[in-house]
């Protein structure tokens, strides 16, 4: 279970302080699938990075399975069972896809298992096992490999930062199915940052983050119709200028 308590993150000096995340609180129970959505620049990715420990909060607390992890390093959080798929994954010169997935897995990943993960993210597996995770991969291919790195782990909490970005619509359908299966089989709980209605359709709960604050939160049944209404109206969740009602 994840509890985020009154979490804030600001940058700049005290005279010119910019609140990126401003007193955000929520709880995510085990077995739940949470989608965090909202306009670009609203603080969604920062919130995800705070949970993974890549950024350190200015104040507030993060409790994971009863342990206060607020001051824990990324490494220790990973060991405690949190995983994070980057919005813009780094490339590694000289590292093969199989090598990267083995590092995620924690030991040499059997090739058939590796192929299964790659197939699940829409990559023709045999072609990709020995490809390097470098500039020869397209942005979409890299994102899929990134998603596969989380499939190779068994996590208490898997966080995906805009996994759909750079992935074509055809593959996207398959990806949605992968996420559905992943929540069911592999991870205790999942947070996905997304603008996609199709991914929100998978959610148990949705949180809308805007201007660093929780603008609204609730069950998918309650929140999604309202969000879709906004989508038609003024709130373009893909990140264009937004006016809130």
């Amino acid at each position, binding site marked *: 279970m994840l509890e985020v308590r009154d979490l804030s993150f600001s940058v700049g000096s005290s005279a010119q302080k910019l609140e990126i995340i401003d007193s955000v609180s929520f709880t995510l129970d085990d077995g739940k699938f949470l989608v965090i959505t909202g306009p670009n620049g609203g603080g969604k990715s920062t919130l995800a990075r705070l949970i993974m420990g890549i950024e350190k909060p200015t104040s507030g607390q993060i409790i994971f399975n009863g342990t206060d992890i607020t001051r824990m390093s990324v*490494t220790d959080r990973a060991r405690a069972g949190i995983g994070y798929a980057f919005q813009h994954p780094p490339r590694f010169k000289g590292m093969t896809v199989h090598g990267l997935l083995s590092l995620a897995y*924690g030991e040499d990943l059997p090739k058939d298992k590796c192929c299964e993960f790659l197939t699940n993210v829409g990559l023709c597996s045999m072609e990709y096992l020995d490809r390097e995770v470098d500039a020869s991969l397209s942005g979409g291919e890299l994102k899929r490999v990134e998603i596969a790195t989380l499939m190779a782990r068994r996590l208490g909490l898997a966080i995906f930062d805009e996994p759909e970005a750079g992935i074509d619509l055809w593959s996207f359908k398959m990806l949605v199915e992968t996420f559905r299966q992943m929540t069911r089989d592999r991870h205790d709980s999942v947070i996905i940052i997304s603008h996609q209605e199709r991914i929100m359709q998978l959610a148990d709960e949705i949180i809308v983050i805007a201007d660093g604050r929780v603008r609204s939160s609730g069950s998918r049944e309650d929140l999604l119709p309202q969000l879709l209404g906004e989508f038609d109206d003024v709130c373009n969740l893909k990140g264009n200028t937004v006016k809130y009602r």
Partner: protein
Amino acid sequence: MSDTIDSALLSEIADLHAVPAGAYNIRKNGAASGRRSTANIEITTKADRPGIDIRIAPFTKNESVHIPVIITETGLDDKVYNDFYIGEGADVLIVAGCGIHNAGDSKTQHDGIHRFFIGRNARVRYVEKHVGRGEGTGERVLNPTTEVTQEEGSVCEMEMVQIKGVDSTLRQTTVHLAASAKLIVTERLLTHGAQKARSNIDVYLDGADASAQIVSRSVAKDKSEQVFYPRAVGNNLCKAHVQCDSIIMDSAKIRSIPEIAANHSEAQIVHEAAIGRINNDQLVKLQTFGMDEARAEDVIIRGFLK
């Protein structure tokens, strides 16, 4: 291969765990320590200076030559001239390399001067590894000079690796390519402590349709210093690509000076060079797998130099 130090050095520089299959010549502390010629590969001692001639008969296929050098005496200054004559249409693997184990306080140096004459349509894969170790304070110095002459249609792949332990290196590589000849050079280097390494590579694309690819990857740690000076000169219709990529750490210094020159309007020559720290996102990504920073750094460097 009498003792453990010899075996360890041989396995590191030439992947040798037993007497190699095929032709070989092992040089230890400036003297011959074992040799075998085969029906197609003849190894003979030079009459006029230290070193050997290796003659590979035309159309020899799938054979290998191992010529490792190991030095375990401190204070030795060893200079050797090895000439390789590779016959037309041959396809061979040549594994060279030098391992110095310096347990004393005097400088130990090995200068290997290798000349390759690669015949028409022959293919050569050349692997050279340098290793330095030993608990003494004596310097371990390796200065290899490699001259390659490639005839028409020949292919030469050179893999030159020096990972740790060598205090000072000056590497000079010069290659001339005739028509349709192809050269692929992969150089990998890791320096640490106060080590210094310089690598000059001069490639002359003299014949039509010659091509060359030079990829240099290096990591400089601690206070070590590296200089790369790869130069590709297009004297005909040709293609060449020079790429130098370095990771810099601690208070190391790296200079990368790729030079390209064209003396023909149909020469296409490209160079790329980059020096930078380990990307922070790479470190964080591996930390999200549960690795600590030191292990993540090690994994990134190993991959980069693979």
